[in-house]
Every structure is written in C-alpha cells, then in structure tokens.
C-alpha cells in the first residue's frame, strides 16, 4: 500500500483511516472494507478541506488508496465518481478532468464515465474542437453501440450542432450513423433526422459509394439503375430518399425489438463483487449467440465488453470472447491485451483454462516459444499446490524440443535431482527395500529451460514429471516394459508417497495391463505407507475392490474375504474411525494400530483434548450370568479411578 514511513506521522493523526487502510491492504478483495476506507477519507477531507489541500503527503495517501482500490476493482463507477469529486475539491477542475481521463482508460466500456468526461471537457473548453471531435469519436467507438447509449449521442449531436451548425454535413453524418444502431431510443433519432433531412441533398444523405442491400431494394422498387445521383431525376431522387430511409427505419426498429428481448431480461448490468445470477448468465449467453449470428463485428465486441462488466471474473465468457476474436480478427495486440486484462485483473488465479489458452496462443498462433514458456511457468508459480501446471509445462517443453529423448532425460533428471537434494540418496526409510536400484550417476539437467522448470518444482509437483514421461512411454510409444520399469524405479521413493498422480497413473496402467499382482502391490503399499489424502487412498481402494470382484473366482473371493471386508470398512463414509484399520495404521509412524487405538480412546471422540485416564472397573460383573447362577461377585477392581478429576488436556493454540 505504498506507505511512506517518513510521513507516517501525518496519517497517524487519523487512526481510523490508518486502521482501515492496513486492513484493506491485508484483505484487498474485501469490498466492504474498501467502502469503509473511502467513507473515512471523504469524512476527513470534508472536515479538514483546507489542511488536506495544503498537505501533499496526505493527498499522496488519498491517491494511493483510491488508486489501489480502482486498480483492484476498475469497474466501480461510483467510486470513480467519488474520486473525481474529491479531486475536484482538492485540486480543481483540470486535475479532476485528468482523473476522468484515466477513468475512461481503465474502464472504457463505461458510458456514464465517458459522458462525465466529455461533459467536463466540453463545458470548460479544456480541449480545442479538433481534440474534442477526436474524443467523441473515441467514445463512439467504445460505447456508441451500447443499447442505452442515447445520453452520449445526444451530447455528441448537441456539441456538433453548436460547433459545425445543424445544417452542416458533420451534424448530418452523426445522424446517418446513429439511425442505423439498434438503440433503445432509435425512434426519437429518426424523428429528428426526418426533420433535418429535407435540408440536405441526396448526395449528402446517400453517398454515391453506398452499396447496402436496403438501398438496392429501394432503387429496384423505383427502377433506379445507378448511384450516380447526377444522372437521376430530381423527382425520382425525392421519392427514393424517404423510401430508402423508411427501410432503414424498419431495419433498425427490427434490430431494437430483437435486442430488447434480451436487454429486458438482464437484471444486472453493472459490476458488483458478487456472482452473476444463473438466469443472467443464461440470458447473456443467448444474447451473445444471437449477436454473433447477426450483428456487425463492432456490435459483437461491444456486447462482449458489456457482458464482461458484471461477469468480468467469469473465465468461460473470456474464453468465448477470445475464441471469437482469434477466429474473426487478426489483431494480435488487442488479443494479447485482452488476455492480459483477463489474467492480470479479472479472472482469479485458480482458474487456469484461460491461462493455458494464453500460453497455447503464444505457442500455436504466434509461434513465440519464449512467451509461451513464460506463460506456462507463471501458471506453475501461481499454483504451487497443483499438479497439472507442471505437467503442461513439461509437455510444452517436450513439444518444443527437437531432441525428444533429451527432453525426457532432462525431465527425469529434474525428479532425480530433486530427490537427491531433498531426500538424500538411498538412505530414506522406505528406500531401503528398493527393488531396482535407481540410476546412481549424478543427474544432470542439460537444457536451460528445464533448469528453470527445476527451480519451480516442489515436493508435491516434482512427481508429476514421472507421470508425464510414463505417459509418453506408454500412450505415445506403447513401450509397456519401459513404462513399468520407470514407474517401479520410483516405487518406494519418499517423494511419491504423497503423489496422487503417480499412484493413480500407476494403478490405471496396471489395470489396463490387467496385472493383478502389481495392482495388489500398489494398493497394499498405498494403504499402509502412502501419504495420500484419505479420499484419494479410499478411491484407489474402491477401484481395487471392484477389480477384485470382477477378476477373481468365487473361491479366491471367499479366501480373501477378510481383507475385502476391511476394504469396505475403510471405504464407507458410514464407518467410524475405530473401524478403519488401514487409516489407523497409517496414522502411526510405526504402523502400529494399537497405539492409535490408545490415542482414540484417550481423546474420547474429539481430537482437540484428551484425558489422562478413564476410570473404569476392570472386572465388571458378567451381566449375562443370571442372578441365581452366582453368589456375590468378586470385589471390584479399578484402573485410573484416581484420575477421574484430572482436567481434560486441551490442545493449546495461540489464537
């Protein structure tokens, strides 16, 4: 949050502000906190306007807070407006206009901000008319196609009317554009247009180079054979104009009506930091399909941009938009800019599909390997606990390298080096019984790209490289023996004990090879020594149980029933922990189930506390013996009676 220690003393006069900005820095996605922060700043400025005006450092804090907020959430129109008002109070008109300029740069789809910006510029004559015209054109490009863009067009027409006069061609040309856009208020523009068009010639109204279908129809109806208006009789021209513009009107009306069908169904068009309703998402999707089928490319883009205001964090819509652009345009700068906008600002990092798409775009469309690699590595860095980014990065390097064997070797060297550096050589507890000694030579990574990848690996993701190489061996090269050797060579490495991809791949491989013995070895290892989540372990166990039922004889099943039943007890969510023998065995470092039983017994059903001893009678009277079948029972004997009053020992945690 850009705090400057030297000026801390100034802001420390406002403890509330200080507290809120610290909290917002810690939790930048919390819009409620940001709201409180802005309220607090506005309150301070209102009560100390003069002091704030004078203090540069205070203003720096204010700017920093607003900038941070609006960089994180650029689509908050109301906060932009509040920022502008504040800036106006503190630094006057020009600075606030500059701020509006950056507002429309950050949020170019916002009609409201554009109207404010143009209004402030025009009414205070902050730019000359040429620059203002350019500004209007830029705004028309960004927001002019929006269904409710009439405030903008009114502004433009009003200004142009004053600037060039209502009889000028400039003024007319705006009308000629606007009457073709399916706007909510299209009829009003037609009415006004019909009033002014009588003052213009056919050449002004219908350029001779025009070639739209409506014009052709109108000309056919009136038997006009040319658009060289000098050759056309005045009478004919006089009938052609209303005929043609009537057709334009009907076309636009149709457009507006069909758009209205969707527009009227969308409930929220502004950005709010909360999910878009399913109903709205469905309407947007249908609306986009409709526009893609019939609209101009500008209209389609405008609609995507509008949809991506409320739904800016929805990966699927970004992907759809980018697919459309890649297919229909070749503006690679715009596409890359959009990818960056999506990945850097809007789509949370856990959504990886759009990021993979970005990488693939570099790789396939632009053949830019360096940027593609950077994109893949960024995903790996952003998702240190996920397997697939490393897998994808490896597959990219493999595709990209000319010497495939070297890529495989480097990939495996990464894993071996990782094991060597983090788990030592063959000293690990489970390593001792290794079936096949691993390659004892020093693993060397030759390629620089793999060296960079190696630096990104962690204990969770490193094993993914084994799986990737195994996939190449098995699925691409159909080398079953080699695949098995590779997988077995890592079988008892500490690294793979917690690797779900490794075990699930190995399991699937042996399942397809129909190797009963190896499947049983895998499952036996995982259920006693694996460090997978209970859910994953039980998933393997369930698959194995299912496999056994389908691949054993009745006799084998009966002989093996005890173990099969233990599998059921393990898999069922209904079973209590005391019934889960493999889990209990895994919970103890020495795989001694009994010591876990002791622990469970002492915890009394809740792991957060435990009792030192449970008082109990060790020789209770056998209740199954009838009263008249025995005399006075033996005197009771006890254990831990003296511990009955010892308080429960709770796990102490620093809160």
């Amino acid at each position, binding site marked *: 949050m850009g705090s400057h220690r030297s000026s801390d003393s100034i802001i420390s006069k406002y403890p509330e502000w200080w507290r809120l900005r610290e909290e917002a820095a810690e939790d930048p996605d919390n819009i409620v906190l940001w709201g409180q922060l802005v309220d607090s700043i506005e309150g301070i400025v209102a009560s100390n306007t003069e002091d704030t005006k004078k203090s540069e450092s205070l203003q720096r804090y204010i700017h920093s807070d607003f900038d941070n907020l609006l960089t994180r959430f650029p689509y908050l129109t109301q906060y932009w407006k509040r920022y502008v008002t504040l800036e106006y109070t503190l630094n006057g008109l020009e600075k606030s206009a500059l701020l509006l300029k950056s507002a429309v740069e950050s949020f170019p789809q916002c009609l409201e901000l554009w109207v404010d910006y143009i209004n402030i510029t025009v009414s205070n004559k902050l730019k000359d008319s040429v620059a203002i015209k350019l500004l209007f054109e830029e705004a028309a490009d960004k927001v002019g196609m929006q269904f409710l863009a009439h405030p903008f067009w009114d502004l433009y027409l009003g200004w142009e009317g004053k600037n060039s006069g209502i009889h000028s061609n400039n003024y007319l040309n705006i009308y000629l554009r606007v009457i073709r856009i399916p706007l909510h208020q299209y009829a009003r523009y037609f009415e006004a247009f019909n009033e002014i068009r009588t003052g213009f010639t056919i050449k002004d109204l219908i350029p001779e180079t025009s070639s739209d279908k409506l014009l052709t129809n109108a000309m056919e109806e009136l038997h006009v054979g040319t658009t060289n208006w000098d050759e056309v009789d005045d009478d004919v021209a006089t009938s052609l104009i209303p005929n043609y513009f009537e057709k334009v009107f009907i076309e636009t009306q149709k457009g507006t009506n069909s758009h209205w069908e969707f527009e009227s169904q969308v409930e929220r068009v502004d950005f709010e930091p909360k999910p878009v309703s399913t109903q709205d998402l469905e309407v947007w999707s249908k609306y986009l399909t409709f526009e893609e089928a019939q609209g101009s490319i500008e209209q389609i883009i405008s609609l995507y941009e509008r949809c991506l205001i409320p739904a800016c964090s929805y990966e699927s819509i970004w992907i759809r938009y980018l697919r459309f652009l890649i297919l229909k345009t070749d503006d690679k700068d715009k596409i890359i800019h959009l990818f960056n906008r999506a990945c850097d600002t809007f789509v949370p990092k856990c959504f990886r599909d759009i990021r993979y798409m970005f990488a693939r775009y570099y790789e396939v469309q632009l053949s830019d390997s360096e940027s593609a690699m950077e994109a893949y590595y960024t995903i790996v860095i952003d998702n240190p606990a996920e397997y697939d980014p490393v897998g994808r990065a490896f597959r990219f390097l493999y595709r990209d390298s000319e010497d495939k064997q070297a890529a495989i070797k480097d990939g495996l060297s990464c894993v071996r080096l990782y094991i060597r550096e983090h788990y030592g050589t063959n000293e690990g507890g489970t390593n001792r019984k290794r079936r096949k000694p691993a390659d004892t030579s020093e693993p060397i990574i030759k390629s620089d790209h793999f060296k960079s990848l190696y630096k990104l690996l962690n204990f969770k993701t490193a094993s993914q490289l084994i799986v990737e190489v195994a996939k190449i061996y098995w699925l691409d090269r159909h080398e079953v023996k080699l695949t098995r050797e590779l997988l077995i060579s890592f079988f008892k490495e500490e690294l793979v004990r917690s690797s779900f991809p490794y075990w699930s791949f190995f399991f699937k491989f042996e399942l397809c090879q129909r190797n009963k013995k190896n499947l049983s070895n895998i499952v036996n290892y995982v259920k006693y020594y694996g460090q997978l989540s209970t859910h994953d372990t039980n998933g393997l166990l369930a698959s194995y149980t299912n496999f056994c039922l389908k691949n054993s004889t009745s006799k084998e099943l009966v002989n093996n029933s005890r173990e099969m*039943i233990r599998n059921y*007890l393990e898999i069922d969510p*209904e079973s209590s922990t005391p019934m889960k023998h493999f889990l209990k065995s895994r919970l103890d470092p020495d795989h001694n189930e009994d010591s876990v039983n002791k622990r469970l017994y002492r915890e009394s059903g809740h792991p957060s506390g435990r009792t030192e001893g449970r008082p109990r009678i060790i020789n209770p009277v056998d209740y199954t013996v009838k009263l008249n079948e025995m005399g006075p029972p033996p005197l009771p004997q006890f254990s831990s009676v003296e511990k009955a009053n010892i308080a429960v020992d709770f796990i102490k945690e620093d809160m």
Partner: protein
Amino acid sequence: MDIPQNFLLAAQSLDDFDSWQKLVSLTENLPTKDDRYPVKISQGSPDTLKRLLFIVYENLLTNFPFCEQYWCNYASWKYKLGDTAQEVTEIYLKALKFLPKSLIIWKNYIHFTLDTSPSPETILDTLEQARINIGHHFYSNVIFDPYLDFLRSSGRSKEYHLLLRRIIELPLYHYCKYFQEFLRLLEKADIESIKYFISDEDLKTYFKGTSWGDLLSSDSLRDLKMRLKKQFTDVFIATQYQVYQIWPYERSLKKQFHQPGKLLSRGELNTWNSYLVYLEAATLRDKDQKSSIGKATLRTVYERCLIRTSDYTYFWLKCSNWRLNMNQLEEAKQVLLKGIYCTRDSGFRLRLRLIDLDILSGNLEDAVDLAVEGIQSSPNSLEMTIKLIEMENLKDPTNVLTLTELKLDEVKGSKYESQFDYLFREVLTYSQISVSKLESFFRKYTKSKKNSYQYLRALIDFYRCYDQNGKGYEEAMKMIEDSDEGIRERIKRFVSDDEGEYFEVAKVR
C-alpha cells in the same frame, strides 16, 4: 354385522401414517350415530368389530414395525378382548424379536407379566431376560424399579442385593438413586447380609486374617463395612465418570421413538452418529466382548438409534459395518437384510452390500436371488445390472459379453440406452475377456454408429490403453470429432493435451 361405512372411507386412503392413526382410533370405538359419545370396544362387542380392530393393528404393524407403542397397544387390546396371557405373551415376544432393545416394549411386557403371571419363577425369568437385554439402556430404571420392587415384596433379599450390586456398575440416568440404596443396604448389613456383598474368597484375600466368625464382633463388622464402602465408592466414581461422558449425547436426544415418514434434523442425526463413534472409541480396549458393559451399551445404543433412524440407510450400513468389524458376518448380514426391508434403500446401497457379503461368504445363490429381486423392483437399475453381470462372471465367465449385449439390445432406443452405455466401460475391467474379443465387440457398435458419451469414452479408453496396436484410435478420434459438441468437449478434455480427469480413478461414493 357389516363393516361401518366410515371405516371403509378411512381405509381408502392409507398413504401416510396419520391416516393409519385415524383408522386405528376409528376401529377402537364402537360405531355410533354421530361419533359424539365414543364408546370403546369391549369383550362383548360384535366379533366383526373386534376382528377388524386386530386386522388394522396387524396391518399397521406390518407396515410400521418400528412403532413400539402400537405393538403394546395391540397386545393390550388382545388381552382385553379375550386372548389368554400366553397368546398375548407371544405378541410381546414377536415384537421383541424384531425390536430386541425396545425399552417401551420391555417395560410393557414386564408390567403385563407382573400383572398376569401367577408364577414368581416366570416373573423372575422375564425380569432377568429384561435385565440382560435392556439393562444397559440409559433409562433402564423403568425396568429395574419394578424388578427391585418385586424382589423386595417377594422377600428375595439376596437377589435384591445382587441386583443392586450389578446396577451400580451401569451408566444410567438414575445411577445415584441406586447407589444410595446400595450404601443403605451396606450400612444396615448384619452378619448374614454382609455375605451378599463379599464372597468367602475375597474376604480371605483382601481382608487377611478375617473370617466370618471374626465379624461377630461389632467393631470388626463396622470396620469391614467401612472398607467395603470405600471400595464401592470407587465404583460410584467410575460409573459417574461414564454417565458424565454420555450425558451430553443423551441430553440432546429428546425423542427416542420412531416417527414414520418424519425427517430428522441434521443435529439429531449428528448426535446419534457422534454418540456411536464415542462409544466405539471408548470400547476400543474392551477385550472381553461377551461381558463388556461398554460393548453392551454400544449395542443397545445402535439398536435404539435404528428405531429412531430406521429410514436412514446410513445407520443401517454403519451398524452392519460395526458388526463386520467385530467379525460377526452373519449378524452384519441380518442387519442389512432388515435394513433393506425397512428403508427405501435408494440406489440399492444396502442390497448391493449384502450381495457382496453373500459372495464373500460363498453364498452365490443367495446373492443372485437378492439381485434378481432388486432388478424385479427396478428393472432399469444400472448398478444392479452391473452386479448381476459380475455374478454371472463368477459362474460362467464366457457369458459376460453375451449378457452385456443382451442388456444393450434390450434398452436400445429407450430412454435408458445412454445410461446403460456405461456397460461398455464395465466390460473393459474383466481381464478374462481378451482384447481381440473386446475389439470385435466394440466394432459391432461402431458399425451401428453408436455415439453416446459413455460409449465413446469407453471406445477411446480401449484403443488408447488396451489395444494400442490397431488403427482404432484414429477412427475413434474421428468419431468423437463427428459427435455432438457437448460430448466432444467432455471427451476431449481427457484425451487431448488438456486432459484433466482421464487418470482419475473411480470416486468414493
């Protein structure tokens, strides 16, 4: 006499328990003109009405066997309307066979026996049965109070002592009351009754040098009582500790009877579950299963829980697993069997497990019967079909493909076709079906242009992982390219570079 009209009307709509209740109250009274002054049926009432009452009760109890109080009411009507005590006892025994840990039924049975049996031995025997079966219920004071009263009033002082000696070891709601009474007895004990507290052997072992004769001196007797009191106070401490531990659960379980068709709150279900888990952990170190009070308490709580939660497959399976864990396969199967007929068993969770247990205990025929019964009630159940094919494989492995084809043909064109296309994925897991047989099996359906998701996924799996040498993979990929967009997208996710779910193994239920 004809059957009353309003009875016929009520009997037409028996879709819920409320209607049954109305029907019962209707049949318990004589038909009157305007139902304003109801008169209960009595022994002298017409036979038709009496028979009608019994039929209603019997049907109700067939449909809702967990309604404990209705069993008792039925028995009570039977007695009122002329059945012998022996006949009524049979009803109680039948109810207890189904609900062996029902406190309500035991209580009524005991009172019935006390009221009707002329033989003290029979009464004592019934009371002992109750003690053994339901004595570990937290509220079993309703059994012990009449038991102690009976012993006292019939002058069975020794048994009275011995019963209390047993009760004080049980974690009961009224544990204090019984302990006080036990101490009172000890306080009052004389040279004769002190023998009910300590055996010869213990006297010799623990109080060295003391013999029964020595106790003739009042000091020695007082001294012995003092020492015994200390010893038994420790029993009190141990029992109290256990009561404290289970009280939070018992306190939360406000209603302990079955309410047909009523959904239980999440809180209540959680309490039952954690109560069971607690007791299981607490009995982990009880070696002697037979006489362990903890195990007996646990067993009682399981049965109590199932009376309340009998609509929930979760607790039936939990109970069955608990039995399995104690190596009681037959008991586990009985629990499942009862569960199957007492719940809707949606998705055949209990039935499928019972089938598996039958297979594992070598009862393939029973397993097949269960599956056939299941498939009759739900002919389009995929799970049951898979299980049937699985069992056919155990009998004759050559039939697996034929059976699969038959089923696929049967559902062809129906709305179940795409669901049953999962069978294509199933056949891949049978190792005894050779790859070449699978190849021709798949070919047959490729020719008929099958293109559902499950089929294509199985196909691609087959050519990618099982039959890597042929050209089938490319053909399969082409079929995927030509399939619907939705299917194409789903399959491509796991076969292309973007594979995600491909190497995931089956999920846990």
